[in-house]
C-alpha cells in the first residue's frame, strides 16, 4: 500500500530536531538529516551552511533505493546501513522503517562512533515517527481541506 501523507506538527518537529541535535553532539558529526525514503527532507541539524540539503536528501534516497534493489536481487530484504568514506568528509546512512537517518561527518569523528550513535538513536526515532505516522492518518484537520480552485489557480498566475 502507498504510504499515507505525513503531517508534522510544530511540537513534533521540534522533538525530532532535539533528538537530531543530541545525536549530532554524541557522534561529533557535522550534519544530521532525517529523510523520507521517497527523498524528502524531514529535518536537518548542524553545519548546514551552503549545503544543498534538498538534493542531498533526494540522492540519499536514490542511493538507498538502488542498494535496496541490489539486496533483494541477492535474497536480502535490504541493506540497513550504508557508509561512504571520502578523503575528508564521509556519510553514514541508516534505514529506519520508511525513514533514512543520514550523518555527515569529518575527521573530528569516526565511522565506528557514528555507527554506534546512529544505532543508539534509531529506536527513539522509530518510536517517535510511528506516533507521528499514526497521528497523521487520524488527523482530519488538513490545512488544505478548505482550499478553493482559486487558491490553486493563483499559484500559476
Amino acid at each position, binding site marked *: *500500500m*502507498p504510504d499515507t501523507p*505525513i503531517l508534522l506538527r*510544530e511540537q513534533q518537529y521540534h522533538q525530532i530536531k532535539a533528538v537530531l541535535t543530541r545525536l549530532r553532539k554524541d557522534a561529533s558529526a557535522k550534519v544530521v538529516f532525517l529523510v523520507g525514503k*521517497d527523498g524528502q527532507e*524531514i529535518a536537518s541539524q548542524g553545519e548546514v551552511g551552503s549545503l544543498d540539503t534538498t538534493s542531498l536528501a533526494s540522492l540519499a534516497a536514490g542511493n538507498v533505493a538502488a542498494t535496496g534493489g541490489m539486496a533483494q536481487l541477492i535474497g536480502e530484504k535490504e541493506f540497513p546501513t550504508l557508509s561512504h568514506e571520502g578523503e575528508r568528509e564521509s556519510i553514514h546512512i541508516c534505514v529506519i522503517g520508511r525513514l533514512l537517518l543520514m550523518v555527515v561527518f569529518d575527521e573530528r569523528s569516526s565511522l565506528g562512533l557514528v555507527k554506534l550513535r546512529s544505532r543508539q538513536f534509531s529506536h527513539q526515532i522509530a518510536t517517535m515517527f510511528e506516533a507521528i505516522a499514526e497521528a497523521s492518518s487520524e488527523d482530519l484537520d488538513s490545512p*488544505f481541506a478548505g482550499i478553493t480552485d482559486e487558491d490553486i489557480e493563483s499559484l500559476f498566475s
Partner: protein
Amino acid sequence: MTFINYASREINCKIVYYGPGLCGKTTNLQHIFDSTAPQSRGKLISLATETDRTLFFDFMPLELGTVRGFKTRFHLYTVPGQVFYDASRKLILKGVDGVVFVADSQEERMDANVESLHNLEENLRAQGYDLMTMPYVLQLNKRDLPNIIPTEDLAAELQRKGEPVVEAVASSGTGVFDTLKAVAKQVLTELRKG
C-alpha cells in the same frame, strides 16, 4: 508521499515524469529549470550516462508559491526510459503523488509508448498505487515533427481515464508548464480531499 510540515509551513509533493526512451522527459525538466527564477527552484540533478541518457533519475525541486500560508514545493523526477532500466523506474515511483506520461508522437514510437504505459501501470501496482485513481496527465510531445500521429489517434490509444491531454514541444517549451500545471492542480485537489 505528501509531507506537510507545520513548523516550516511547507508542503512537499513528488511528481514523476514517465515515458519511453528519448520521449523528452529530461527536456521537460530542463525547460522548467531554464524558465524558472533561481530563487524558486533548486539544482537540476541529472544522473546520466556520458551520452546524456538518463541512468537513474533527474531531480529538481520547484517552489510554486503559497497556499493558505503554506509554501508548496514540488519535487520533480524523471525515470530512465530505456527498457532495461526497469528496476530503477520502480524505485523512483516510491512515494509518488502525481505522474506525467510523456508520449512520443512519432509514428515509429507508438509501440514504445504503449509498452512504457503498460510498464507504468504495472510498476505503480507493484508499489500499491492505481493509475486510475491518482493524479495523472498525458503529454503528447514532439508535435513539431513531420511524421507524427494525429492527436485524436494518440489519445484514443493512450488515454486511460479522461485525464488531461496536453500537446507539447518540450524542446521549445510549448505545453511544458501546461502539463505541470495540470498535474500539480490534481495533486493539490487530492490534498483537499484529505
